[in-house]
């Protein structure tokens, strides 16, 4: 492990990383937020969704002030039900990151598979897949995700809606972001499939699945990594937006977007901290993942620079 880190540090990418303060700062931020989300149950002073740990007398406690009735102290304040805002943020961060990562993973698997098939098989299959991609790309991803969410809501029985909401969200965002993966992998597959090593693999009697995934796919790894990072930022924003609009994570399992939606009602009456801290967390998450993606794109492939 240590030798791998040191070899990364010495490589070209490591060199570019060391020379970019923005990249280092973003990476630290992402790691901190990731750790905070992973270890939320151990870091937070309370489980905000266990009613037995809440005290209504703590409702609307401002940040960094001791509550005169209960003598409790909240770093980021408490919401209307006496929940510690810091704890709700870490639990919300968990949902936001989980939805974002799983949605990108789903879009990646779908896009890479379809792209490989389109590029390797070619012909009619290729044109059907890429035409679908073109049509989908004319519509904004957020609209498609909303539509899928709406349909799923209509299909799911009412008592299960809250439980499946998170999974529907993952599928909806994943289905709306597969196109960039498919395009870049298709391009790589079309270039690679006529090369000698693929021919050799064919002569050695390997099946199309092995050739596609073991011989062609590794050649497209670095653009896939770049697109995945940028997609992660977009997926986190999409999730937050949908939840904010009330068509995403339910109030029983709030993500950062849901927290902002709830906090906005209180901000108008002066309890700014219920809105401000979740919004700030989302901002830092979106900015750091995004700048990490930008840096990775420039470092791995300078020709992609916009």
């Amino acid at each position, binding site marked *: 492990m240590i030798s791998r880190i040191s070899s990364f540090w010495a490589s070209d990418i490591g060199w570019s990383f060391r020379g970019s303060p923005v990249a280092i700062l973003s990476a630290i931020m992402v790691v901190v937020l990731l750790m905070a989300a992973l270890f939320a149950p151990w870091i937070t002073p309370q489980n905000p969704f266990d009613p037995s740990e809440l005290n209504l007398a703590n409702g609307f406690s401002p940040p960094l002030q001791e509550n005169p009735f209960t003598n409790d102290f909240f770093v980021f304040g408490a919401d209307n039900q006496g929940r510690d805002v810091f704890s709700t943020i870490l639990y919300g961060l968990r949902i936001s990151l989980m939805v974002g990562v799983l949605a990108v993973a789903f879009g990646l698997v779908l896009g890479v598979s379809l792209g490989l098939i389109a590029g390797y098989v070619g012909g009619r299959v290729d044109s059907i897949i890429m035409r679908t991609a073109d049509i989908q790309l004319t519509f904004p991803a957020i609209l498609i995700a909303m539509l899928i969410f709406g349909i799923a809501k209509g299909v799911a029985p009412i008592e299960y809606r809250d439980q499946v909401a998170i999974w529907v969200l993952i599928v909806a965002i994943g289905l709306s972001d597969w196109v960039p993966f498919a395009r870049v992998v298709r391009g790589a597959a079309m270039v690679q499939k006529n090369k000698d090593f693929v021919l050799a693999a064919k002569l050695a009697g390997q099946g199309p699945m092995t050739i596609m995934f073991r011989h062609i796919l590794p050649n497209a790894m670095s653009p896939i990594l770049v697109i995945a990072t940028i997609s992660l930022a977009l997926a986190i924003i999409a999730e*937050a937006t949908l939840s904010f609009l*009330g068509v995403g994570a339910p109030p029983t399992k709030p993500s950062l977007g849901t927290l902002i939606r709830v906090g906005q009602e209180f901000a108008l009456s002066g309890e700014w901290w219920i809105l401000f801290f979740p919004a700030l967390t989302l901002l830092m998450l979106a900015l750091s993942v995004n700048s990490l993606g930008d840096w990775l794109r420039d470092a791995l492939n300078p020709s992609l620079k916009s």
Partner: protein
Amino acid sequence: MIVFFIRRLGQSLLVLLIVGLVAFSMFRFVGDPINNMLGQERTQADVDRMRVELGLDRAILTQYGIFLKKAVQGDFGVSYRQGRPVIEVLAERAPATLELALVSGALALFFGIVFGMYTAIKRDSFIAKSIMTASLIGVSLPTFLIGIALINIFAVKLELLPSFGRGETVKIGGWTTGFLTRSGLIALILPSITLGLYQMTLIMRLVRAEMLEVLRQDYIRFAWARGLKERSINFNHALRNTLVPVITVTGLQLGSIIAFAIITETVFQWPGMGLLFVNAIQFVDIPVMAAYLMLISLVFVTINLLVDMLYFAVDPRLRVSGGKG
């Protein structure tokens, strides 16, 4: 030209047919339309009558045909939630969205070109660099956060501008406009900034890139050599040559503005089509969802078609390749 046009038109119609199929399947298979329309106290006779009335007893393909025919005539059924024809509800909401989109588009275009030119001409100045950095951050911010920030600064803290709604509106024929009253115009400020900001940064970066390219050309140097005024060079010689890509990109963005209005309208409780769509999703009002989907697809497809035509008219190279497009 004709071949290219017909082929693109065919593609657009195909897309609309597919979207129509999606909308039809939503209407037909998500939930039971009869259950959704009739109340709790229905008799079997009511159900049978409704089934025939809606044509649900016919073959699926025939139903699809009837659905399309009605949609072309503007009949999208009745909203489950409001009990009124969907087309009526949409027509009532459309002016709010269109006025908002128009103002944001104009703002984005104007400030995008101004900032783009400035950052290109004075590219090493401190202000230009600050604008560029701010635009980078602006692109990665979620729209709804910008809206919330504006509300909390200008409506809650400073109490200068309203935080929600359209203000007073005036009715002219079937069109309600907020342009004619003071409160209507004031109410437009924050939502249109929120909606236009992202498009503005896009246009600004495009104008800047194009301007930098053009300013290096020989004819600009020649214009300097002729002793022309700086203003005349920047506007008449440089800007004019960057406008074609700017206009096409802005045109393409028009669809996105209408789609992203969903977010802005929810933040500001702006009574437009986007808010209607969000509410429709929350309450599973399928006819409204289907109608909005078809309407917005029509807008997108039309804009794409027009922009393609424009490219074709502007760029002669496309004509030589036999209109393969």
